[in-house]
C-alpha cells in the first residue's frame, strides 16, 4: 500500500485529531468508533458518528450524519469548497455520495478493506464517471484509527453472550507499518488489509448492525 505524501501534513492532522476525538467519544458510548468532520475554510461545519443503530438504517454512516448537520445550515454547494476528515476510509456508498456532492478532498486514517470506496476495495473517487474526481489522502493518525476499531471489536466480543475464543478478545497492538510513499500521487494505491488485522469475529455476528466507515 502506498499513501501519498500529504502537503502541509500538520494542518490536516489538526483536523483529523478532531475526527479521532469523535471516534473516541463514539467508542465510549459503545458505538462504532468511526468519526468524521467536514472542514470549510478552516472551520468545522459538520461532525458525525455512526447512526445506524439509532435509525435501524444500515446506510446512516458517520459521513451522512455529518452531512445532515451541514445541510441544516448550508446549501449542498458548500461541499465543493469543503474537505472531509474521517478516521476510516469512506465506504463505496459514501465515496459515491461525496463525489456526487462534489467534495473537494478526503483525508482519512486507515483503509477500509471491507467496503472501502477510496482505494480499500474500489476507487470510486477516481474512476471515470460523470462527476469530477476528488483527491484522497490516507494515513493520518492511521494507528489511532485502527486501535480504536480493535478496541471496539474486543469490547463488543466480550459483551456478547457467547464470547469469541480468548485470542479474539485480546487487544492486538502491533500494527504493520505502511511502506514509504513511492509516487507523489494524492490517491491511494493498491488496497491491503488493515482493518482485517482486527479480524475479531465480526463476521460471526451476522446481526450486528454496526459497520465501519
Amino acid at each position, binding site marked *: 500500500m502506498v499513501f501519498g505524501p500529504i502537503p502541509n501534513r500538520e494542518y490536516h492532522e489538526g483536523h483529523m485529531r478532531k475526527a479521532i476525538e*469523535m471516534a473516541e*467519544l*463514539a467508542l465510549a*458510548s459503545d*458505538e462504532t468508533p468511526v468519526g468524521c468532520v467536514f472542514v470549510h475554510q478552516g472551520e468545522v461545519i459538520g*461532525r*458525525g*458518528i455512526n*447512526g445506524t*443503530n*439509532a*435509525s*435501524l*438504517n*444500515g*446506510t*446512516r454512516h458517520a459521513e*451522512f*450524519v455529518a*452531512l*445532515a*448537520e451541514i*445541510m*441544516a*445550515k*448550508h*446549501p*449542498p*454547494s458548500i461541499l465543493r469548497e469543503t474537505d472531509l476528515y474521517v478516521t476510516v476510509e469512506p*465506504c*463505496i*456508498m*459514501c*465515496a*459515491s*455520495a461525496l463525489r*456526487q*456532492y*462534489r467534495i473537494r478532498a478526503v483525508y482519512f486514517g486507515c483503509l477500509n478493506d*471491507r*467496503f472501502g*470506496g477510496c482505494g480499500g*476495495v*474500489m476507487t*470510486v473517487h477516481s*474512476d*471515470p*464517471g*460523470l*462527476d*469530477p474526481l476528488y483527491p484522497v489522502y490516507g494515513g493520518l493518525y492511521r494507528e489511532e484509527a485502527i486501535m480504536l476499531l480493535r478496541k471496539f471489536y474486543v469490547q463488543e466480543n466480550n459483551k456478547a453472550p457467547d464470547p469469541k475464543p480468548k485470542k479474539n478478545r485480546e487487544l492486538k497492538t502491533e500494527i504493520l507499518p505502511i511502506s514509504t510513499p513511492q509516487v507523489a500521487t494524492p490517491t491511494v494505491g493498491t488496497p491491503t488489509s488493515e482493518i482485517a488485522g482486527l479480524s475479531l469475529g465480526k*463476521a460471526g455476528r451476522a*446481526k450486528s*448492525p454496526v*459497520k465501519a466507515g
Partner: protein
Amino acid sequence: MGVRADSKTDSAAGGDRRPTKHMVHVKTKEECRLGTVTIQVWTVEMPSKHAEGVLKVIKENIEGHDAVDLQHLRRFAKPKFLPPHVLGDRDLAKELHAIPRAWETRRPAVLQHPNSRWEWATPGKVPRQENRAPTLYLMVCPSSVIGLQDLRSLLLQHPPFASGADSWAYPLVIKEVTVPRMAPTCLEQAAEWSEAYWPTFYRKTNPFGAHPSTIDKAKNELESPTEGNVSIEQVMEMADQAGLATEKAGLGIRTGCVVVERVDSKTEIIAVAGDARLRLPPSAGGSPVPSSGFDASPDDSFLAEGTEDADVPSVGSEKTASKAKRKKLRKKRNKALKAAEGTESNGCSSGNVMAHAVMRAIGMVGRKRLRVASHMISSAAAKAESNFTRVGLEHDEDARDAFFLDMPLTPLEQEYFQVNNLKPDGYLCLKLEIFLTHEPCMMCSMALVHSRVGRVIFANRMPRTGGLTAETVRNDTGPIGLGYGLCWRKELNWQFMCWEWTSAAYAMEQKARQERHTAIMQQKGRRRNVEEAATVTAAGGEIDDDADEDTDMAPDQPDMDDDDDNANAGKLSFTSVHV
C-alpha cells in the same frame, strides 16, 4: 393488497394481459470477466479402442495433468461434435489407417455422467460393421503442463502410437486448441462454447453467482404470484407511479422504488418512494413533511441554490402554484435537466443526493422497523440516538429529516408508510425485494448491499451511472455500463440476485432463440437416433444434448444479451443522471 392503478400504463390497457416485459437476470462481474477466459490444451486423436489406455498413460506420466479444473469439458469427444478448427485438415494418412483391423472390431461407448470425474467405461455392445474405425479426440492436459516434444515422445512409447509386432502405429498428431477455462453458467453458454471450442457441460451450478435453480425459483415467485399477492407488473407500475408522483409535485425526477417483503410467497408492500432530490433543502427552510399535508404542491420544493448552481434549474421561489404555472415550472426544470445531460461535469448530480428513491425507501424501512421494534431494540436505538447528544452533535431533528427525506412526501408513499406490516425486530432490509424504475447509482447500489436486500429488479439500465450491472461494452452498441456489478461482488460481504425488467422485443428475441435452439436439438436428436441406433449414449440427458452441440447454431454470438440494449436504453430522458 390495494394496488393503485393510476391513469396511464403501457401494459394493462384493454383485455391484453400479456406482460410486455420479462425478467432477465443480470450477469455478475465474475460471469462477465471469466466467461471469456480461455486456456490452451493439447489434444490428440486416436482409435476409440485405445482411449482408455492413452488416458491411463497420461494420468500416470504427466504430473499436474489435472491441476487445472476442466471438468466442465468432455475429456473425450467424437470428431463429429468438434468444431471444424479443432479437427483441422483431416490427415490423409490417418484416413488410410482407418480401415477395419483386428484392434478396431469393437466399438467402445463413452459414458460420461455429468457428476463423474472423466470416468468412462465400455459396456459390451454388439459391434457394428462399418468401414471406418471410430476415433475419439482426447483432451490431454493444459499445454502449459508439458512441452510438445515431451508429450510426443511419451505417447510414441505407447499404443496405438507405438508400432507393435501385430499392428502399425497410429499416426500421432498433437494439436493445441483453445478451450474455456471456467465452467459455463447457463445452458446457452454451454451450447455456444461447445460450438466454438470443445464439448462443454453445463452442470446447473454457478460458482460466479446465485445458483440457477435459486434464480429460477425467485423469478417464478415474482412472475407468477399466488392469489391475492402483487405481481411484478403491478409493483413495477407502482414504482413508476411513485416517481411520477414526486415529479408531478416538483420534488424530484421520475424515478421510483418499491420495497416488498415476501414471506411464504405472501407479499407485503413495505415502502414506496419517489425521487425527491429537488425538494427544498433544510438550509433553505425545507421541512421533512409536505407543508400542505400529502397534497404536495411544488411551493417549497425547488432547489434553493438557484442561479448559484450552474447545473441546476433556476426556477425561482414562486409561492403560487396554479396548475398552469406548475406545469410550466416542470417543463423548465426538465429542460434544465436535459440540458445538463450532455455537458460533462454536469451529470445532474444536482439537488439532494440523499433523496434518491432508494435511499429514501431504505430510510422508510428503518423508520417502520423502529415503530414496531420490541422494547429491547427500541431502547438500544434510543440509547444510540442519545449518543449524538453525548458526543455534542447538533440535534436538529427536523433539519435532519428534511435532509434524509425518509418520510412520505406523497399520498402514495404515505399510504404504505403508515401501515405497520413489518414483523418486530427484523434486521435492516434483510431479504426484502426492491423494485426500481432505474438501475441505481453507486451510492444507492452500495446502500442496498449495506441493507442486505434479497432481490432487486430494475426497469431501465443506466449505462453511465448504474452500479449494479457488470457488463461494460457490447459489440454492437458500445459502452453499456460502468461494470461495477455491485449486486454480486465476492469482495463485499453481501450479494443479492438482480434482474433487468426488459421489453417485449427482447423477450421475443429470446423466445425465438430458444425455439431455434429446441428445433436444433430435436433435429439432432432425430439424426442421431438414425445414425447410431444401438451405440453410444451419453448419460445426462438434456445437459449432454447441449454438450453435443455442433455447427447448427448461429456463430459469432458470444453475448446473448445483444438485443436488449436498444430496447432498454434510449427511452430515458435523463441518461446522465445518478438515480
